[in-house]
């Protein structure tokens, strides 16, 4: 694994230097939180089961960060590295292909963690956000969600032929998902039809799991979501092993 940590560190720096990546994972979720937090505050409301808007918005925005880094950044990164010949340049070095992929996973975990930390700290300091669930369960739910979206990203990266098609594909998936899954607009405010349709979006299951664990639900109440996300990881890894191309 010689070189893995340095590669991970360099990749993390590269993600931060990419204006779009840094904006959507770090700045945009914070802007959302500050905008809606200052409009609605965080007063407990029966509409959200006794929680305030910020309490249920932060797990939603965290889901958006996960979607952004797992599906969006990873897909674009792999597609452009392949198209430009970066992956090719790494091949005659001792760094093995699985280390190249592992570095992406670790660096994107880093990006996700940065984005979520910013949300948590702001939520706590400005809006006295409540996290009822125990920290270990919350961390486990975030990790499971992140892995499931990284798996989705690898599958897409194996399918899309070029960076341009990668961008179009992830945009087409990203925008409906973040608005209709409950990640940005709470599911309580979505019409029933949309809520039924959004069951087909992977992100909906991330939002539901994170929101539930956040407010202290037992894991037993979220087995369907856990099943979907674990399934995404298993199927994603299997498909990636078959379809992934270096050139």
């Amino acid at each position, binding site marked *: 694994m010689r070189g893995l940590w340095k590669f991970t560190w360099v990749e993390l720096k590269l993600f931060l230097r990419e204006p779009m990546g840094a904006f959507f994972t770090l700045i945009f979720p914070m802007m959302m939180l500050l905008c809606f937090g200052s409009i609605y505050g965080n007063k407990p409301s029966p509409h959200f089961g006794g929680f305030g808007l910020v309490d249920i918005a932060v797990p939603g925005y965290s889901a958006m960060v996960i979607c952004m880094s797992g599906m969006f950044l990873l897909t674009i990164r792999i597609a452009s590295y392949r198209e*430009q010949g970066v992956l*090719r340049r790494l091949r005659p070095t001792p760094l093995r292909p699985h280390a190249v992929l592992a570095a992406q996973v670790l660096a994107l975990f880093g990006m996700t963690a940065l984005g979520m930390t910013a949300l948590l700290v702001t939520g706590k300091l400005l809006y006295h956000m409540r996290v009822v669930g125990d920290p270990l369960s919350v961390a486990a739910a975030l990790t499971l969600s992140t892995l499931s979206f990284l798996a989705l990203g690898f599958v897409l990266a194996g399918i899309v032929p070029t960076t341009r098609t990668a961008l179009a594909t992830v945009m087409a998936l990203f925008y409906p998902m973040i608005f209709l899954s409950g990640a940005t607009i709470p599911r309580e405010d979505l019409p029933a039809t949309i809520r039924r349709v959004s069951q087909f979006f992977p992100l909906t299951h991330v939002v539901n799991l994170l929101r539930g664990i956040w407010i202290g639900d037992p894991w037993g109440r979220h087995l369907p979501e856990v099943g979907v996300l674990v399934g995404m990881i298993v199927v994603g890894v299997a498909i990636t092993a078959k379809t992934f191309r270096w050139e």
Partner: protein
Amino acid sequence: MVALPVVSVERLRKTYGPVIAVDEVSFEVQEGEIFGMVGPNGAGKTTTIECMEGLRRPDSGRVAVLGLDPDRNGNALRPRIGAQLQTSALPERMRVWEALDLFASFYRRSADWNVLLERLGLAEKRSAFFSKLSGGQKQRLFIGLALVNDPEVVFLDELTTGLDPQARRAIWDLVREVRGNGKTVFLTTHFMEEAERLCDRVAVMERGRIVALDTPANLIDSIGAETRIAFTAEGTFEPGWLEKLPTVTGIDSMDDRHVVRGTSDRVIVDVVNALSVKGVRFRDLRTEQPTLEDVFLKLTGRQMRD
């Protein structure tokens, strides 16, 4: 006593669909040699070098680099070789120093990349993004990355494409220095001058086959091209007697400008000596010797494309 070759390729064959890229190619590269491969585009040079780097799996034949099969023993081989690829890139926003530092971290043993940065004339570009480098600077950085692990064998695919004449000469010096440290260099090139001046031996490739392989001097001798020596004589001068010199094969004269032809470069010394002995005064002496370019054109029968 013959040392084991550093690279040994036997009957290498590689096809892409109906196209035979490399057709039963065999050669050996000895330790401490600068071995060059020239040929028109599509002749199979890059496929050959990629089979040696372990980037492609041969259809048949045997490739051994440092005694290892690049395809099967890649993990043992990769730490010991350096490679500069014809088409590759680095992430746009990776800085020059980061690239060298990162690639150095892949190896147990690595050269001091700060020295490389200096030698490649990239010290000022140390903190520049890869995307902000000129073509020549990118090429020099890639050569640096190929040398960052102090490799035993270096593969350079079109090492000076895109470089200006000064940078090209600096790279030649660097390659000679690498060889001077006991390393072996395998390179492909488009520039005949580069092959002639830099390589100990040159293989000429054409349509997937090696059509000639020897030292540049022997290759040039082998085509029996003429050496010409031209001069302008002062005063009255009748050149006919020069034809009696054994190395001279013919003379063409126009007014007082004379062109003497001969079979080897001995003719230059012979003619100049003879003129001095006879006290003939001359000016504007020019010599024209056959080059590897002539060999190339004769063997491949066409101009290089692009």
